[in-house]
């Protein structure tokens, strides 16, 4: 027998535990044992452990209160080290051999918590205490008050280490999703499964059956739990039914999409490398919510002591786990259902000390030895560390060690509200039921809809499935639902005991009392949403599942409104807590987003390249050589060697779009600001793209490979956006044009070959029958060629570096070998590979605008390209690019800047000021957008925008940089630092 409170095995085996094997576990370091089938909570109760944790605010001793996911009190830390998981509900933690758990929120020891003194300060710690008290001095909040409050109030501790477990996400599709595997859910799943529908049955428990496992009801002539087990076996045998135990449907989204968290390996000592939890996205054509109901307590003095539990939970521990909640159990109820706890316990030989029913009516049962008190109320409890007895409003004292409380049952309406539905109040069961508009496709069955008896649950589940099958056009082969009893469920609304002595607790998780709600009302917090935020009622891990309705009732009492008029706070996903790790799934660390590799990546990595992220891409930034100790040494060498000889750079990341059709030229003419209609076949043209508001947003080159065939390049950053915009223009603006687009960014590897020896080098790569002489293949020429003995390729004579340069493209699979072939062919010229840093230096030296210049505020005029924007054609952005403010003569212009003292270093982001001018917005003349140290010139250079720049060449201004504390005199020069006439690239 594992623990003094374990009930002896009767003839039927006694509950759903496996007594043939015992499991060893530790709580607060103490060695205990339990059985397979136990939760941590049932095993603790079996061992007589009543004190499980300390409360959030007052550090009151707390114990197990429920037997399910609604648990407000028994929060524990599970496991140890980096695996430590705080705020786990002991009531849903499945016991395994070697489990380690600790209580929470105490200092010193759980039994003698040093912070329990907070409880003595309770008169000062009521609702709104923090807001009112810690207001001044203001500077004390961050440094003194908040750390102190955080240390004393709170829940469990995080491990502080990265989560070593893995999590996953998955997608499931079904005809019918059934949420909850109690009587209603099982009846629904059986009806749908037998009809051949694709069914998913999800239940948060590790044993399906819901309340049938916790009750002694009969279904179809046998024990309810046995019927449930048989139903699950039948469902498991069906190919088109998927059972998801340990899976909580946490939210209902649009159009039949549900999120569900499956705890895959939480119940195992070792996950064996498998994911701990899986977050499912379930696409359902129809869904049946059979989520059952949650019992609610009654508030009275000292109702939070360990040993005070919900009556249904005490029954579940006895019937399912064979655990007695105490040696002498009392009942405090306002409804018929609570009496069943007394009957079930008595039948198992547990002493029932008393039944106190607030209803003044005849007793429902004869319980020998029990004091039956009808029309009576419990006003207080006593007992240090746990209930030792209760005192009634009449003053009568009854010794007992477990008080089972039932205030009625609240249907679990949560998921019905996730799409804006508002629950409706039903007087006959004194509870909210689903109301208004349900999420489309959802039906509710059983207790979740307010049908609180087993027979009704079975019938409703069955009927809801039949209706769903009808909607889906699936022929129903459902048969009849099994018969069961219609239990007595009469309830008389009763929320809190006025005669309470001591604090009467509404929300055990947040330490909110009846008095706090009354005070909130007195201070003007009338709306339930305000009440929630002011008192913290219904917050944290349980979201007030056992607390909210009671608090609403107290508020309604204060305002003189009905509960229906008072309404509930909004129910939002998730239904129960979901770890952030589950939302992340595998998308964490390096896998947070996909990584795109260039065709030459492995080649570059093998040569020690340093990589940089460019969007999703990893690009070689520079290629260090032995002896180079600073990145500038590598970059300077790559620049100088390219300009002196030849350099090669992987530029595959540029967006490439294949554009074909009879109207392709006209299409380009409309999407580029400059003209493309007359671009000859075999030629490339630089193109500038505007947004419709006239601002420049991208540029690139487009080559005409044939009469009706073009290939466009975009910047790396905008490849996706440009393609999206082109498709918009093609489909939505000019659907009459015959043009088709496809992205070929990843289909073609492309390399820049730049430098005075680039033609010679390419002469060794391009197959000899292609003439690439300057005459036959001049600047801005393009052609489809073959390289390396027959490999198809495209050759473009374009230059970003300002040198004689080409770009050569081959199908991506040849990219890596072409990189090697190019370097090998240029070995005797001293060919170098260069990275993005050298690319950037050379483009600044040449004065090309790039990302730092195209910032969403840049006009064509600012770039000196106003004449390119054609006025003779319709193109995106041209109408609004003519707005006067964008074309002012004294507007910003892209210029070059060099330090007057060549030893000075420039910095991007500096603002330009006249000599002697104060640094004010009014004196701001522009800004430095890009800088580089030019190895070609031997000093720092910059590009930037300055007012009326071209008219001011030679003028000295200051590059004022408040961030770095610099103020550098700079001379305004042409942006083209090198070869302003462009002789090199035409050579």
């Amino acid at each position: 027998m594992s623990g003094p409170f374990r009930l002896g095995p009767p003839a039927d085996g006694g509950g759903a535990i496996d007594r043939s094997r015992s499991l060893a576990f530790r709580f607060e370091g103490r060695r205990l044992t339990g059985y397979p089938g136990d939760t941590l909570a049932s095993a603790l109760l079996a061992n007589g452990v009543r004190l499980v944790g300390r409360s959030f605010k007052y550090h009151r001793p707390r114990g197990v209160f429920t037997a399910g996911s609604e648990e407000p009190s028994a929060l524990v830390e599970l496991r140890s080290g980096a695996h430590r998981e705080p705020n786990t509900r002991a009531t849903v933690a499945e016991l395994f051999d070697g489990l380690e758990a600790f209580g929470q929120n105490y200092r010193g020891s759980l039994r003698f918590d040093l912070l329990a003194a907070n409880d003595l300060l309770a008169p000062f710690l009521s609702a709104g205490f923090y807001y009112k008290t810690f207001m001044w001095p203001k500077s004390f909040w961050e440094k003194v008050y908040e750390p102190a409050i955080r240390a004393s109030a709170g829940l469990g501790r995080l491990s502080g280490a990265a989560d070593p477990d893995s999590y996953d996400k998955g997608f499931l599709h079904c005809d019918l999703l059934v949420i909850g595997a109690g009587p209603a859910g099982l009846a629904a799943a059986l009806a749908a499964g037998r009809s051949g529908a694709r069914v998913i049955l999800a239940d948060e428990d590790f044993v399906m059956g819901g309340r049938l496992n916790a009750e002694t009801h009969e279904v179809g002539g046998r024990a309810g739990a046995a019927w449930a087990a048989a139903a699950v076996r039948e469902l498991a045998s069906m190919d088109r039914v998927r059972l998801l135990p340990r899976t909580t449907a946490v939210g209902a989204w649009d159009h039949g999409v549900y999120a569900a968290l499956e705890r895959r390996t939480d119940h195992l000592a070792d996950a064996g490398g498998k994911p701990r939890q899986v977050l499912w996205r379930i696409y359902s054509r129809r869904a049946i919510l059979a989520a059952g109901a949650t019992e609610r307590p009654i508030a009275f003095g000292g109702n939070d002591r360990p040993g005070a539990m919900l009556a249904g939970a005490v029954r579940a521990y006895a019937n399912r786990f064979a655990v007695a909640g105490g040696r002498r159990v009392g009942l405090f109820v306002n409804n018929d259902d609570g009496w069943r706890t007394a009957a079930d316990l008595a039948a198992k030989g547990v002493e029932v000390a008393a039944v106190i029913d607030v209803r003044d009516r005849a007793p429902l049962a004869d319980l020998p030895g029990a004091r039956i008190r009808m029309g009576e109320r419990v006003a207080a409890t006593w007992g240090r560390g746990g209930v030792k007895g209760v005192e009634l409003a009449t003053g009568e004292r009854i010794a007992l060690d477990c008080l089972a409380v039932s205030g009625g049952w609240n249907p679990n309406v949560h998921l019905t509200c996730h799409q804006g539905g508002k629950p409706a109040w039903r007087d006959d069961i004194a509870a909210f039921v689903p109301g208004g508009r349900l999420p489309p496709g959802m039906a509710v069955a059983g207790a979740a809809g307010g049908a609180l008896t087993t027979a009704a649950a079975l019938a409703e589940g069955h009927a809801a499935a039949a209706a769903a099958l009808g909607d889906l056009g699936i022929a129903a082969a459902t048969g009849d639902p099994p018969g069961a009893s219609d239990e007595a469920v009469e309830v008389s609304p009763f929320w809190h005991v006025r005669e309470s002595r001591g604090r009467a607790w509404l929300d055990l998780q947040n330490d909110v009392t009846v008095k706090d709600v009354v005070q909130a009302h007195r201070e003007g917090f009338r709306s339930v949403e305000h009440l929630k935020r002011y008192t913290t009622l219904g917050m944290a891990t349980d979201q007030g599942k056992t607390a909210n309705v009671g608090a609403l009732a107290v508020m309604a009492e204060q305002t003189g409104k009905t509960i229906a008029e008072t309404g509930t706070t909004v129910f939002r996903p998730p239904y129960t807590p979901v770890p952030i790790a589950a939302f992340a799934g595998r998308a964490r660390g390096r896998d947070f987003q996909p990584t795109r590799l260039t065709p030459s990546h492995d080649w570059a990595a093998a040569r020690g390249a340093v990589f940089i992220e460019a969007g999703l891409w990893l690009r070689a930034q520079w290629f260090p050589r032995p002896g180079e100790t600073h990145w500038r040494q590598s970059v300077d060498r790559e620049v100088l060697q390219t300009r002196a000889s030849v350099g090669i750079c992987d530029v595959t990341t540029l967006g490439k779009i294949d554009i074909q059709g009879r109207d392709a030229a006209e299409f380009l003419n409309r999407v580029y600001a400059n003209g493309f209609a007359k671009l000859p076949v075999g030629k490339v043209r630089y193109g500038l793209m505007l947004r419709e508001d006239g601002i420049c947003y991208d540029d690139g080159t487009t080559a005409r490979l044939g009469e009706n065939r073009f290939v466009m390049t975009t910047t790396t950053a905008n490849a996706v956006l440009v393609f999206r915009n082109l498709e918009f223009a093609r489909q939505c603006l000019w659907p009459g044009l015959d043009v088709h687009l496809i992205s070929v960014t990843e289909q073609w590897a492309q390399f820049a070959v730049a430098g005075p020896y680039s033609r010679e080098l390419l002469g060794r790569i391009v197959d000899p029958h292609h003439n690439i002489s300057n005459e036959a293949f001049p600047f801005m020429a393009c052609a489809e060629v073959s390289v390396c003995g027959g490999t198809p390729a495209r050759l473009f004579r374009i230059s970003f570096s300002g040198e004689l340069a080409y770009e050569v493209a081959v199908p991506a699979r040849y990219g890596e070998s072409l990189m090697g072939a190019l370097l090998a062919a240029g070995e005797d010229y001293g060919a170098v590979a260069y990275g993005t840093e050298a690319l950037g230096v050379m483009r600044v030296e040449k004065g090309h605008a790039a990302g730092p210049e195209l910032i969403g505020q840049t006009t064509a005029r600012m770039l000196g390209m106003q004449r390119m924007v054609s006025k003779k054609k319709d193109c995106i952005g041209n109408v609004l690019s003519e707005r006067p403010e964008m074309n002012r003569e004294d507007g910003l212009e892209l210029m070059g800047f060099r330090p007057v003292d060549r030893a000075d270093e420039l910095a991007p982001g500096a603002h330009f000021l006249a000599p002697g001018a104060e640094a004010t917005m009014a004196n701001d003349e522009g800004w430095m957008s890009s800088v580089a140290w030019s190895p070609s010139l031997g000093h720092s250079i910059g590009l930037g925008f300055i007012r009326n720049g071209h008219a001011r060449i030679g003028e000295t201004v200051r590059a004022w940089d408040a961030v770095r504390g610099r103020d550098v005199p700079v001379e305004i020069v042409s942006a083209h630092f090198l070869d302003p006439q462009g002789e090199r690239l035409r050579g």
Partner: protein
Amino acid sequence: MIIDHPLLGPRDAAEFVILGDASLIDRPDWQAEDAAQQFHDYLHLRDNPAGEHRELWFHEQGDRSWLVVTRNTLTHEVLKVELARDVAVARGRDR
């Protein structure tokens, strides 16, 4: 959210990118006398209805169709899904 693609059937909204009001199809005539004003209105003035709204969605992780989705912004109900190209042609944009 599910969008019932006219060519591909029901697809998850995660496959799409939303642009906004379908009135962006009605690009003004660049040669109109008050073209600047028309383009200003076209670009910047939108209705923001609580209820039925026609929106442009791009099936970026799919077949790259632009769609006009008629959607109730209060209930998220999708009332109609059309190929934007068909809508544009019906509005005479192919001439």
